[in-house]
Every structure is written in C-alpha cells, then in structure tokens.
C-alpha cells in the first residue's frame, strides 16, 4: 500500500475516534482541555508505534492461540514505559491525565491495530500505520479538547480567550463530552460523504 495513503488514512477516512468509534473512554475522559488531549494523544501514539513495530517483528514467533495475551503484554510494557517517563519528566501532565494513562493498555485502538494490521504486515507498513492512526487519534483529541475547553472555560491551551463569566460550564463536565463528540461525529460523517 502506498505509504502516504497508509499514513494519512488515520486522519479522516479511518479516524479511530470519529469513524472507527474506538478509544472512546480516553476521548471522553481527558478532553476537558486541549493540552490534556494533546498529551494523551501523543502518549497513545508512542505506544501504538512501538507495539506495532514489536508485534510486526516477532509475529512469526508467536503461536496463534496466545497471540492476544502476548500482544497485551507487549502493549502493557510500553504503557508502563510511558507512565514512568511521564512521571519523571512531565509530572503535572501525568497528574492531569491520571487513571487514563495506564488505561491506554485497554484502548481498543492499540490492541485492534496490533491484531488487525501489525500482525499481518511488514515492519515499515505497520510502523507507518501506527504513526498515522496515533496522530489521527491525537487530532481528534485536540479538536474535542479544544472545543470543550474554549466553550467551557474560556481558555484554549491555557490562554484566556474570553472572560470566565460567559462560559458554559457544562462543556467541561461529563455531559458536555458526550454531546460535543456526538455532534463532531455527525459533522465528520457529513464531510466524509462530500
């Protein structure tokens, strides 16, 4: 497959959040601000990229019946690496993202790509796919996070855009996440049709 197409499909055509409807939990859980969305997206992209690479490298050595547990262990290892590195070098972000960092291991996107793609393709294709899907995921998170942050707190990337007195608090709370995501999916579906 053309590697450019392989990379770019993660953004609109096969966007994991808006089209494939995977990885919903972190999408709703960490997008109360654009920075959080960005941090989570990049952390997940790292895990996706590395686990896709490793799975693609050792796929011939893993007996079929234990492939899911093996993939899970590999993914869990990279998630732990992310946990440790973030705790050490970006502790503020680590605290904001909280529970959702270890939950990357059960992000259906990561296991899904390892199973559906990396285990059936060569190293370069798998790596590019991981990168593309991961960045597409990041794009979705930043978009959702940005909208929620702007409408719900008057800030964007922590920069005050308008006064706190005019915010619609709902958007940074739980219901706002569901509602904004619902509308975003509807909009993206329309864009895809055109």
């Amino acid at each position, binding site marked *: 497959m053309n590697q450019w197409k392989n990379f770019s499909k993660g953004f609109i055509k096969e966007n994991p959040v808006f089209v494939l409807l995977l990885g919903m*939990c972190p999408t709703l*859980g960490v997008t109360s601000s654009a920075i959080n969305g960005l941090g989570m997206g990049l952390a997940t992209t790292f895990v996706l990229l590395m686990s896709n690479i490793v799975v693609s490298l050792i796929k011939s050595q893993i007996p079929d019946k234990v492939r*899911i547990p093996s993939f899970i262990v590999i993914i869990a290892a990279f998630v*732990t690496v992310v946990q440790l590195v973030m705790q050490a070098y970006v502790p503020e972000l680590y605290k904001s993202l909280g529970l959702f960092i270890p*939950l990357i291991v059960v992000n259906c996107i990561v296991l899904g790509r390892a199973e559906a793609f990396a285990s059936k393709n060569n190293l370069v294709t798998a790596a590019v796919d991981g990168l593309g899907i991961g960045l597409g995921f990041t794009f979705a998170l930043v978009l959702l996070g940005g909208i929620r942050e702007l409408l719900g707190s008057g800030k964007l990337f922590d920069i005050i855009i308008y006064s706190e007195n005019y915010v619609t608090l709902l958007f940074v709370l739980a219901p706002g996440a569901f509602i904004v*995501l619902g*509308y975003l999916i509807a909009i993206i579906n329309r864009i895809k049709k055109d």
Partner: protein
Amino acid sequence: MNYLVIVIGAILVNNIVLMQFLGICPFLGVSKRLSTAVGMAGAVAFVMVLATIVTYLIQVFILDAFGLAFLQTIAFILVIASLVQLVEIILKKVSPALYQALGIFLPLITTNCAILGVAILTIQKEFNLVEGVIFAVSNAIGFGLALLLFAGIREHLDLQSVPKGLKGTPIALITAGILAMAFMGFSGLV
C-alpha cells in the same frame, strides 16, 4: 470509609460510565438491545468483582511486598485477560445461547476500561479488601444500571424520526450526555 458512601457514590454520584467515562465501548456497542445488555452487564459484573479481588491480593502480596509496583499495569491486565478466558469457557458450557448472543463482545470485556479502571482505583483509593469488594460490586451495579437505562432508551430511539446526520452513534452520544446530566443531579447525595 463508610460503606454506604462507597455504594451510593459508585452507583449514582460517580457512576462509572456516565461520570468517569469508563466502559464506554461496550456501553455504546451492546446497548442496542435490552436482552444483550443484561447479559453483558452480568458478565462484566462477574469479571469486575473477581478481578478486583485477585488484583488486590497480587498488589499487596506480590507487587508491594517486592517493590515491584511499576509492574502493576502488566500484572493487572494479565489477570483480567485470564479471567475473561475463564468466563468464556464457563459460559460456553453453562449457557451456549448467551455465549452466542454476546459474540465478539465477550473477549472484548478484556479491553473494558471499566474493569481495569476499578482495579486500579481500588488500590489508589487505598481501600482494604472488604471495601474493595463493595466498591467493585457497586461499580458493577452502576455499569449495569447505565447500560440498561441506555438500552431501554435506544430501543425507543430506533422508532423515532431522527435527522439523518445524527442517526446512529451521534444521537446515541447526545442522549448519553443528557443521561449524564440527569446523573449529575445526584451530586448532592453524599
């Protein structure tokens, strides 16, 4: 900590799906029909409680005892994956009909963030084993409650005329948002 506060907190105030955003994938995927929702809620409840007990024991007697806390993610997810396998085997023997109905969603319980989430939260909140079990059972009930409420709503939603662009997942999410708003009303309880 007061047991009642744990129970009310987990089921209503901090509902695992509608407030904490854990378990969304099955929430959206299985809630189209009330009958499958019931089966899924039951299976998740079983795995959630069992997983919380086993992971708690592992955390205390192995991870903490040997200073291996950083292996928590790997250890916990392996426990959950094994438990789900166990449930699959048992279900196949005991109720093949339910096994068929749940289909692909059964192995997907492994990636249900709610289960891993509850296991980790039990440790983070420093519950003891009894509190942990109560917490797990309450969250399982909360998950089931959200799932069943939503499935009931969706069965009705399917019969309404929804604008074309919003059909399917978008309207489901917006409805979930309204349901979440309703649950926010419980915040005065504790």
